[in-house]
């Protein structure tokens, strides 16, 4: 079988096929969307909505991502078949983007252990979410546009992870930002949703400014280091070869790039856009705002680990920001009532864990958690989507309840994902979260470990609060409505089940040695990311076991508590909220962060813009004085000049004569 494939396709071709296939889907569906744009959705004689090319667009839009996944899988199989220690491949410049003296940027792809893991996750989870979308979007007229944008997202995400240089990666980075904006505001007729898209875009711009400044500094460093421009200053290979030259600026560059990561991966202080991003269709939330795009910041930090390891300060900052975000977002998840918002805060919180790992230098642990999180968080979102789909758009968890008998598949898969999120043995989340906490503890950052530990408890509580309120206990739905709730179609359930398996057993990728595993993922990544020195020795082995047990008990304890309270004692929380009213108000209003940003930044900015930049600079100085002033001046002169045209020929001759005198005086005298 493989021989047959290799006969026709080289590995290089496979690599660019991974990227090209989703692009082909985007182009195809984009063209379809343009063609059908003028038709609009109509209703047939049965009163059903019909969108032309719905089936065609869905088929192409789903098959091509699966084909990309197959290509990525083939790449993986091929590269692991290589000689030991060389499972990487660089396509070289597929095309040259710019070539100035002093700046060459090629378009090239790089497949190594790290990018291959990312590509597999992106195409794998991405394909499942595409498949899921068919069912979820079956009542929507914009389905052609939806698949065009979703395919385009996949293309840009793959450019981001497979780029062989930082600038091309930035292209993907901006491209996914664009698609994120488009898909958050997918239902743009609703001003609130369009506004959420704009908010995401604007907040990400702040981060991107940091990213760009980092790029400029890298250019400066490479130029000063005397690197050959022809090899591409931003090429990861070239950059890592010149890594020592980054030493003096590593902290600044690292932190500037991290500002970009904070924007993209929703870390303090730029996390505010992600909860609002839930305005998009739920599969979009699953793909972009949980499994893939938001992890781009983590990927970038891991990819540039050779810069970050030079700056303990930058790593320290990343670790503390990550830990703070993990805790902060988890508390906000406690009080939210919108099923998707809870998951959004959870995503922010889990991304915080990943950055915590990065900050501790445990890059492979960060990637491990990234992968498992992609599995269980995508599953959680799609499960939530299944619930919302079944309830025709209801998102308040306290208007649900007791849905287990009506939505069995959704319920059980959701439960598995929740166990994984809570970090209960032996689900995927347990191993990856434990790896991070163990790194925090063993590297002597007990404070950070404690924050992560507390956050893990909160995580367990809020997710089982959700499970309890939605699936168990008595229902808050009217009985007849509850009876009419039906399970989602098979195309939506297959992804749930597959991801359920991955959430349950995905941890096997990185079972630590202490439990008889060999941390296969860590080993696989060791060629790309530095292995952090563990605090070895028997005593710490014991500590590792103890911490593991404590963590599991801790998480289980909070899980049960959350579950019990929200299935059987639903009046408790209200009493608690009444008792600690100010705490509750603080949390339920998300610490008033949005309001603080609004007062401190947005409004002053708008005020200055309105009074100074608009009214003074634009309206008065530019429009009135410069534009209209110039036009009026020219107009006055025009009238003055044409006044000379009296029609009297004697006067014309007078002009002639005066002109002649001037010419003669100028020339002859």
């Amino acid at each position, binding site marked *: 079988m493989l021989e047959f494939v290799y006969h026709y396709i080289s590995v290089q071709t496979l690599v660019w096929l991974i990227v090209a296939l989703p692009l082909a889907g985007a182009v195809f569906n984009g063209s379809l969307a343009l063609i059908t744009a003028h038709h609009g959705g109509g209703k047939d004689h049965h009163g059903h909505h019909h969108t032309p090319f719905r089936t065609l667009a869905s088929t192409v839009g789903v098959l091509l991502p699966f084909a990309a996944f197959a290509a990525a899988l083939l790449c993986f199989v091929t590269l692991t078949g290589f000689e030991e220690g060389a499972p990487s491949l660089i396509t070289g410049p597929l095309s040259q983007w710019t070539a100035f003296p002093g700046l060459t940027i090629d378009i090239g792809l790089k497949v190594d252990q790290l990018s291959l893991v990312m590509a597999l996750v992106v195409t794998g989870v991405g394909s499942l979410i595409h498949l899921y979308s068919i069912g979820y979007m079956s009542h929507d007229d914009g389905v052609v546009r939806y698949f065009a944008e979703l395919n385009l997202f996949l293309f840009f995400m793959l450019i981001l992870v497979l780029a062989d240089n930082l600038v091309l990666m930035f292209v993907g980075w901006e491209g996914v930002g664009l698609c994120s904006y488009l898909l958050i505001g997918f239902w743009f007729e609703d001003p609130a949703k369009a506004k959420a898209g704009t908010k995401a875009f604007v907040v990400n711009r702040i981060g991107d400014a940091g990213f760009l400044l980092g790029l400029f500094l890298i250019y400066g460093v490479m130029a000063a280091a005397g690197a050959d421009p022809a090899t591409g200053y931003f090429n990861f290979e070239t950059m890592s070869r010149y890594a020592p030259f980054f030493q003096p600026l590593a902290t600044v560059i690292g932190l500037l790039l991290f500002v970009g990561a904070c924007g993209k991966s929703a870390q303090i202080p730029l996390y505010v856009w992600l909860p609002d991003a839930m305005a998009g269709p739920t599969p979009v939330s699953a793909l972009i705002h949980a499994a893939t795009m938001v992890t781009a910041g983590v990927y970038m930090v891991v990819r540039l680990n050779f810069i970050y390891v030079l700056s303990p300060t930058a790593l320290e900052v990343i670790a503390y920001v990550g830990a703070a975000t993990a805790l902060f977002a988890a508390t906000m998840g406690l009080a939210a009532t919108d099923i998707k918002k809870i998951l959004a805060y959870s995503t922010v919180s889990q991304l915080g864990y990943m950055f915590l790992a990065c900050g501790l230098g445990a890059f492979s642990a960060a990637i491990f958690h990234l992968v498992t999180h992609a599995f269980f968080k995508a599953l959680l979102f799609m499960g939530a989507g299944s619930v919302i789909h079944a309830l025709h758009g209801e998102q308040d968890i306290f208007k649900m309840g007791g849905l287990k008998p009506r939505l069995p598949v959704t319920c059980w898969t959701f439960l598995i994902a929740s166990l994984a999120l809570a970090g209960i043995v032996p689900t995927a989340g347990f191993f990856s979260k434990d790896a991070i906490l163990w790194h925090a503890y063993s590297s002597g950052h007990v404070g950070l470990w404690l924050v992560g530990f507390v956050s893990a408890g909160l995580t367990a509580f809020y997710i089982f609060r959700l499970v309890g309120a939605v699936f168990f206990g008595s229902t808050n739905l009217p009985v007849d409505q509850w009876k009419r709730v039906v399970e989602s179609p098979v195309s939506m359930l297959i992804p749930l089940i597959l991801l359920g398996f991955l959430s349950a057993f995905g941890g096997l990728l990185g079972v630590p040695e202490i439990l008889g595993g060999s941390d296969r993922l860590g080993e696989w990544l060791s060629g790309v990311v530095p292995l952090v020195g563990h605090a070895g020795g028997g005593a710490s082995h014991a500590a590792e076991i103890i911490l593991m047990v404590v963590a599991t008990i801790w998480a289980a304890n909070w899980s049960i508590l959350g579950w019990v309270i929200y299935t059987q004692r639903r009046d408790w929380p209200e009493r608690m909220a009444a008792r600690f009213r100010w705490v509750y108000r603080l949390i339920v209003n998300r610490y008033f962060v949005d309001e603080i940003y609004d007062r401190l930044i947005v409004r002053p900015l708008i005020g200055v813009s309105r009074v100074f930049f608009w009214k003074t600079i634009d309206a008065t100085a530019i429009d009135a004085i410069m534009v209209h002033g110039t*036009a009026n001046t020219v107009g006055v002169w025009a009238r*003055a000049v044409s006044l000379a*045209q009296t029609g009297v020929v004697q006067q014309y001759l007078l002009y002639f004569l005066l*002109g002649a005198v001037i*010419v003669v005086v*100028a020339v002859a005298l």
Partner: protein
Amino acid sequence: MMPTDWSIVLNLSLPWIVVFAAATVTLLASASARLRTSPLVALTALAGIITAFVLSWQQWISGSGPIIATLAFDRLSSFGWLLILGIAALTILMSFSYLQDRHAGHPEYYALLLFSAIGMGVLISGYDLITIFIGLETMSVAIYALAGFFRERPQGNEAALKYFLTGAFASAFLLFGIAFLFGTTGTTDVGMIAAQQNQVLSSDLRSSFLFGLAMLVIGFGFKVAAVPFHAWAPDVYDGAPTPITAFMATAVKVAAFIAFLRIASAVLVLTGVLWEHLAWGLAVATMLVGNLAAIAQDNIKRMLAYSSIAHAGYLLVAFTALAQDPTGLSRGILFYLVAYLLMTLGAFAVVTATQETGEAADINLLAGLSKRRPWAAAMLALFLFSLTGFPPTIGFFGKYYLFLGTVKAGFIWLVVIALLNSAISAYYYLRPIVVMYFHEPRETEEKHALPLASPLVAVIAITAISVFLFGLLPTNLLAIVEHSVMAFLQ
């Protein structure tokens, strides 16, 4: 001096003789009442021009000929003459339906057009100031008559008289200048004047010689409508029949500029800084007055008149720098002349089309043209964009080569002024487009217009295709222009 071999002269001037014969035959036809209104008259004129065109093209291909009998038969002459013949042919096509619509089938009209063209040919080829003067007057007298061709129209009479009076005035200056040059150098031959120039300039005849040159510049300044010798142009362009306005705005300017180019590169540039300052002043004044006054016009013919003044100003920009890079700038000037004549002829052709059977040329009458005559409106828009200098039209490359050469010669501020003027011009060129496409027509006007006469359509099509084609692929035209220039500079 070598005796002139008249057989060579006869052979070389064959194109003129053909045109002259056609003009004579056309004129004789006016004796017959039946022939007066026949399309045969226009066809004869056209046939003569086309024959001459083919002959001249062969002359161009065979390379530069000698300077003989006070005439230069070089490639510059052939090229200029080809342009004049092309303009004349298009003018005849444009005039045909124009005259028919006004129930006037006048053979004299075509005869005068051809005589004027011959004058232009002599003007372009003239290598002696007297010959140049004769060419100039032959051209002008015919045009004076054409401007007032419709005797019953007072505006036409006014135009003709104004043109004649100011023209006579200017001719006096020109002749005066020629007299001074003859007085100081003892010759009227351009080449010999150039040869003696340095010697004369260092003698005590310097002032008189320079005075003669100044008069010469004034005389040509009048013909190309350079400020402040321009005041006649708007009134005459407005009053003359539209196809004649087109002919005046293009052929007269092309002929005068090519003759001026010959004299300027032989004689004027030798005065160095003096010429640069004078041309600088003329160019800036011409551009500014032309562009500013064009803004205030409500009549499209007057607007195009000022526009043609402004374009003369752009050309004078290149004349300023002529001494620095004669080949490059002459090339730019000739290319610009081709661009200018194509887009101006096209614009006037569309104006002729919109005038139907009247003479009205108010810009507001164009309202709704985009619906009434969508093609004509689109083409006028194309010509106006080209006049503004938008790519991909020939107007863009015209300005590009012109200003590029001037910048390279070091006149950066002059080009900055020219570009600012170009920006001003966008206002009045875009105004008719706005009116055509965005203003509702007055209700009284008929929604559907009659189909246009095919000769007029042909003119619009030929000019539009050229404007667009040379705007995309200017290299062929540039090569022809380059060959035309190289010969005369050696």
